[in-house]
């Protein structure tokens, strides 16, 4: 391997108030190597890369690219120096073509004509050189996620990037697409490019990188040649203590059907075609008590619609949805009343109202119940605070207290708050016992709808959330787990079904699946492949 140093970070320190996000981090990157930057959420990976790319200015330290110092806080300078970044969330315009997206921002505004022909030649040239086939005139909106990522990479290469930063690139890919990406990376480094590969997945780090740098709590805790290390060693560095793999425990006793979807659609076939993945199409699914049904799939294939349908925030336009033998009410409040616990995908935007205090968020779903308010009007201060405190204790929510805004909680603690709100039944006042329990949601939930419940959490919090779901299952709840993380699906699911293009495959016992079979189903192997693909 070539040993030219292309990038040198020297003593980078960045503080946010009392928090030290990066603590004197020094790193080298050689030409023609893939350096994996490993660390949990909040370890400082994103901050470090944002400093490199000029979004943040470091408090201390310096950056050299190809031997020349990089001016801080200037993304344009970073681009000009040959640093390209592929963000986890793509920055592409859906309604423009591949070529338009690649050219965007590369031409001066005052140029009277756009040099499209030259740009096309250059794009095709770059595409061919790095083995990234592309159709320049296809609209981004009609591409699959893997293809969009390819366009993002091409965009960086087109601008002359010699150092490519990939932020969690496999998070949105099927296993097969990930393999294709790894092959692309190999081809790029073979041509002398350098790659920084940000990830928290140990397996793919071992698979793809030459060297690994591990961040923890803002510090660089380890740096090693990938060949000299092991998965266990990396996990130890990343977390700081030994990690137990989540143990798979089969369901003890599977009970009756709790929730039955029968040919449910949230979109009609007429408006299909373009927006093929957003809604549900003829989805049938039975969720049974005491069982975890896990839905695998590449994100954007209808999982959001399924989760929202069962959370009461989206309506079906055809088919029937039943819960406990009656129609599934299309309202969050009534679902909660009838015993549905919901854990939304986006805890910041949907799970909590960040500006309101923790205690109000802890009781927000049941504020109208007689346990927490008089006549659904006057909030019972004591009862609500007590319940919030119970959630805080039982689910170990750590933060600045019940009065602090929910926004101030870390991701893990916010998720524990949401879990507690959904799972912990309020203590019922004596007088109300024996009443119609539809009005008094004082029991454990019958159905848990968890959409990406561990996304972005650190390993400790992931284990905690998974344990809670298993415990709820063992207590007799039906659990629907929707996750992009194949490992999680296989670790927790008693039955697994795969979603693609808004359609849901048959739910089979987890033991009946192989990784490869799931990967193929995630790519829609049985369904017709999407048209307009650039491959």
């Amino acid at each position, binding site marked *: 391997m070539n040993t030219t140093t292309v990038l040198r970070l020297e003593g980078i320190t960045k503080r946010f108030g009392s928090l030290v996000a990066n603590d004197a981090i020094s790193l080298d990157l050689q030409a023609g190597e893939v350096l994996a930057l490993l660390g949990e959420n909040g370890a400082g990976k994103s901050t470090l890369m944002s400093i490199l790319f000029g979004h943040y200015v470091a408090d201390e330290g310096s950056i050299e690219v190809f031997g020349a110092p990089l001016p801080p806080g200037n993304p344009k300078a970073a681009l000009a120096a040959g640093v390209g970044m592929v963000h986890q969330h793509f920055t592409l315009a859906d309604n423009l073509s591949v070529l338009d997206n690649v050219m965007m921002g590369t031409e001066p505004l005052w140029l009277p004509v756009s040099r499209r022909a030259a740009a096309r030649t250059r794009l095709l040239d770059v595409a061919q050189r790095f083995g990234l086939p592309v159709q320049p005139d296809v609209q981004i909106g009609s591409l699959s996620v893997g293809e969009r990522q390819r366009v993002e990479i091409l965009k960086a290469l087109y601008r002359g990037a010699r150092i490519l930063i990939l932020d969690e690139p496999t998070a949105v890919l099927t296993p097969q697409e990930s393999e294709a990406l790894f092959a692309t990376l190999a081809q790029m480094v073979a041509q002398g490019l350098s790659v920084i590969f940000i990830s928290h997945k140990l397996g793919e780090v071992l698979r793809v990188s030459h060297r690994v740098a591990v961040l923890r709590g803002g510090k660089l805790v380890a740096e090693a040649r990938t060949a000299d290390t092991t998965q266990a060693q990396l996990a130890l560095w990343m977390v700081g203590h030994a990690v137990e793999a989540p143990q798979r425990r089969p369901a003890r006793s599977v009970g009756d059907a709790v929730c039955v979807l029968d040919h449910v659609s949230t979109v009609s076939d007429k408006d299909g075609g373009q927006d093929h993945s957003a809604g549900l199409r003829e989805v049938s699914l039975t969720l049974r008590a005491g069982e975890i049904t896990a839905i695998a799939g590449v994100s954007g294939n209808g999982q959001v619609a399924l989760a929202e349908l069962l959370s009461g925030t989206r309506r079906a336009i055809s088919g029937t949805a039943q819960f406990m033998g009656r129609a599934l009410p299309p309202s969050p409040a009534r679902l909660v009343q009838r015993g549905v616990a919901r854990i*939304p995908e986006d805890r910041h935007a949907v799970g909590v109202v960040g500006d309101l205090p923790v205690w109000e968020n802890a009781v927000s779903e049941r504020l109208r119940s007689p346990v927490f308010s008089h006549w659904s009007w006057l909030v019972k201060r004591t009862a609500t605070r007590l319940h919030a405190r119970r959630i805080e204790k039982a689910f170990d929510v750590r933060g600045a207290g019940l009065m602090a805004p929910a926004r101030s909680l870390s991701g893990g603690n916010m998720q524990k708050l949401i879990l507690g709100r959904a799972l912990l039944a309020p203590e019922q006042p004596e007088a109300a016992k024996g009443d119609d329990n539809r009005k008094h949601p004082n029991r454990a939930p019958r159905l848990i709808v968890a959409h990406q419940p561990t996304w972005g959490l650190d390993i400790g919090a992931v284990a905690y959330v998974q344990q809670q779901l298993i415990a709820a299952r063992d207590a007799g709840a039906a659990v629907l787990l929707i996750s992009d993380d194949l490992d999680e699906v296989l670790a927790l699911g008693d039955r697994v079904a795969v979603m693609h293009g808004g359609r849901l495959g048959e739910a089979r016992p987890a033991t009946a699946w192989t990784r490869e079979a799931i990967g193929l189903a995630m790519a829609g192997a049985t369904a017709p492949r999407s048209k307009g693909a650039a491959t």
Partner: protein
Amino acid sequence: MMRLERRHETSRAALVLAPIGAVVFTMAVSALLVLWAGAPVGRTYALLLQGGFGSVFAWSETLTRAIPLILTGLAATVAFKARLFNIGAEGQLYAGALAAVAVGGMHGGTGFELSPWLLFPLMMLAAAIAGALMLLGPALMKNRLGVDEVVTTLLINFIVLLGVSALLDGPMKDPSAMGWPQSVSLQSDLELGKLVAQTRVHTGLLWAVSLAVTVWAVFKYTVLGFDIRAVGANARAAAFAGVPVTRTVVMVALLSGALAGLAGAIEVAGRTSYVTLDMSPGYGYTGIVIAMLAGLHPLGVIAAGVFVAGVLVGADTMSRAVGVPTYIADVIVAASLIAVLVATLLTQYRVRFK
């Protein structure tokens, strides 16, 4: 280059220094204009302060002026808290004033032959309903059709003013007003009593303060208050938690419009006793400033309303004495608003120069 970075935590010092800095900034900016007008800065400010707060009479005038400002400030507070941007308090105020006169002053002053004990609440109710209805349409259009309520409520102000003008020259015209476009007067037994003899301060102040306390209590202690705050802070999360978002927005529209309508009725019953086209020198718009100055806190609205009223009243006195135009009051109010908004921003973000 300058950039804003979110503060990890807001320090106590920043929270104390922000309002002080805002006041200093406002005084400094306005001082430049005073100097430009060729007046001595110190004396100008002293006169302004004296004119607004320096005597019993000054206080009485300031409080009189504060009554409609507190009410329109509350109207804006309730609406803005739920992110319903009601810019139409001015029109709602006039609608309330007209409704008050329609109930309490028409029919040849007979008042439907009702006792004032019945007629007075009817009059207030009519004003509240009239104001509420003004905002119901924009709120529904926002909810059902996605029409921006800033545009609709603002434009409705002009429609209402033209309507008022037509009514004052038509069916509601006072025949004894020598041709002036002014409405008939309220029955005298419906007028609000004076709070202090020999001044213009009327019992509307008690209405304004108790409504502010009521709004504060609703925000703090009721499910509706939680709904309003949740919808305003994050409507998606609120809907997920089961808050009836549409119903909440409609409730907010009715409450906000009603408060502005009451402002009109209380102005008529407490001060003018009839409606004219210049009855409100933009109370509806100034209410927005007051709500923002108060940080959308209902009790803060009382303080902000008195402050703004004092500056406006004091400016009159000051203007007569040193010849600086009264517009300086508008500048002070506007500058203080900007200063408070920037100061609030700076408690959450820090500025970095590089």
